[in-house]
């Protein structure tokens, strides 16, 4: 476990961007050219059309956590169990991801306070290998859930994932089983588990802990599903409607509880935590 003071977190997240020099960025949806500082001040939401950019894990943590954040599992780093090689070796791919994203793996986990509520918080980051779940993501999420259980804390996990990580083969698939076991043990202790599905949440992550939470929130327009859009289109040989697999589509089909704008997310989570606190100790 390592303590990350505020100043280091903000520095890390700035570095993690890797585009400090670029002052401007373009909204991929409406095409508006946005001043990066304005975008960051607006929680990475397009000031014109409301598009929610994919957030860096440390930026997300900064928007939620008051004060210090004690990281869990930061020392756990990927191995190369299959000795994977295609155009590059797996370790070379990972080194590239580390440099590009500024983080050491696809999830950052730890303990911190949100509006005074101590919580276990996990935040996945799509910028590292597409947020795919290999051993390290599974192990860090499991350590987080176990720590939450030990300290009797509610747990909140933000998901962003392209699914299981191919380069770790069956070791990646088995993380679905591992994390599920840890979720079950947390819930059996009467502890509250919330997931926030962000763009995109698919495959092995959506089919394990993402959909095992008590309450499931999602960010607007986030793509959420089991199979990827391309796979479905190839299978059925027709184009899918635009709304298919969006957060709004899932809400309509009864699969999630709420779609929450990023600006309202912290407030919503705190309200949920208040209800959960009311229940703990009151029921048998």
């Amino acid at each position: 476990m390592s303590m990350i003071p505020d100043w280091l977190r903000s520095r890390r997240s700035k570095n993690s961007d890797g585009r400090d020099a670029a002052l401007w960025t373009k909204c991929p949806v409406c095409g508006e050219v946005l001043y990066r500082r304005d975008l960051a001040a607006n929680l990475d939401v397009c000031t014109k059309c409301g598009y929610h950019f994919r957030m860096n894990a440390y930026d997300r943590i900064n928007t939620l956590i008051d004060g210090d954040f004690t990281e869990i599992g930061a020392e756990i780093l990927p191995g190369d169990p299959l000795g994977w090689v295609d155009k590059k070796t797996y370790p070379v791919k990972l080194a590239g991801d580390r440099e590009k994203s500024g983080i050491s793996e696809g999830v950052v986990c730890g303990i911190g306070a949100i509006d005074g509520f101590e919580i276990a918080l996990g935040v996945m980051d799509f910028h590292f290998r597409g947020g795919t779940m290999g051993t390290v993501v599974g192990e860090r999420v499991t350590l987080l859930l176990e720590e939450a259980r030990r300290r009797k804390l509610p747990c909140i996990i933000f998901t962003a994932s392209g699914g299981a990580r191919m380069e770790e083969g069956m070791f990646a698939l088995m993380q679905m089983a591992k994390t599920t076991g840890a979720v079950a043990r947390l819930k059996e202790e009467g502890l509250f588990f919330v997931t926030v599905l962000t763009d995109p949440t698919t495959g092995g992550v959506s089919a394990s802990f993402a959909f095992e939470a008590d309450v499931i929130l999602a960010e607007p327009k986030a793509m959420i599903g089991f199979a990827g859009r391309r796979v479905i289109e190839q299978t059925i040989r027709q184009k899918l409607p635009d709304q298919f697999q969006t957060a709004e589509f899932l809400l309509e089909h009864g699969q999630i509880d709420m779609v929450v704008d990023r600006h309202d997310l912290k407030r919503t989570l705190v309200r949920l935590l208040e209800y959960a606190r009311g229940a703990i100790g009151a029921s048998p």
Partner: protein
Amino acid sequence: MNGNVIVERERGLLEVERRIADLRSANLNQPVDFSAEIAALEQKYESLQRELFGSLTPWEKVHMARHPSRPTSLDFIGQFDRFDELHGDREFRDDPAIVAGFALLRGRALMAIGQQRGRDTKENLRRNFGMVTPEGYRKVQRLAHIASRLGLPILTFIDTKGADPGISSEEHAQSEAIATCLYEFTRARVPIVAAVIGEGGSGGALALGIADFIVMLEHAVYSVASPEGCAAILWGDAAKAEEAAARLKLTSADLLRFGIIDEIIAEPLGGAHRDPQAVIATVLGAMSGAVERLARSSPEELREARYRKYRRVGAWQTERREDIETRVR
């Protein structure tokens, strides 16, 4: 199935088989003695078989696992002493890609659950090629729950290229259906024994795969994604499936070495379909033995051991100062 490399190879063997049969009938009906020719052909047959099937690449094993004559879940379940199929998810429909119900094996009542592909085109269409929809996974959850309550061990048979990737499956929450299967199996208070009999593809297979003991047929495969899916995801080209099959380490020998499965059941030369009765008997014997061993543990011990088993799986390094320790467990 089109383009199955194993089926193609069998054509050459069939020709020799036919010639042996012809000579045998000629031997009976004609005064000439063909014994020497028959013996020579039989020898040729043997060596041809060894040459064709003696050592299979991962990609050839994928094709063996998909062989149209390979025994399916129902072939295994058919060898139980009793089986009463149960149907439906109680919400929407019955998914024929899952066959499941009460069963009796060597005097023990249990719950059997399997993924079922079709044995011909018509049945494949009805059973969706063994690709399970959310309704099928909800049937699995329901029956696993009953088994856990009644104290019946659960036996599963894994044989699917993956969960159904259709529009309706997404509308009916395929992710949640699989996740809840994993959850039910994690919590089940009874022994769970799984057999990977054909192709085990991705989360759709794992939904029946959380088990206390896992046996796998020698030429079955089990992977994080189908080779075609993996090639499409990584390289945008499903045609590179053969390369993906080699890299994914999806064979029974790989998975035993990784500790992901517990026992390999040998297949006859040429594959399980060459002698299905013997293979099925061996698999059921191994599963039954595992159930009896596991049944000595209390429900809590079973759940705790299951958690610890999956808790260990993975390969990572721990960074501590300059000391990097590699752990492959």
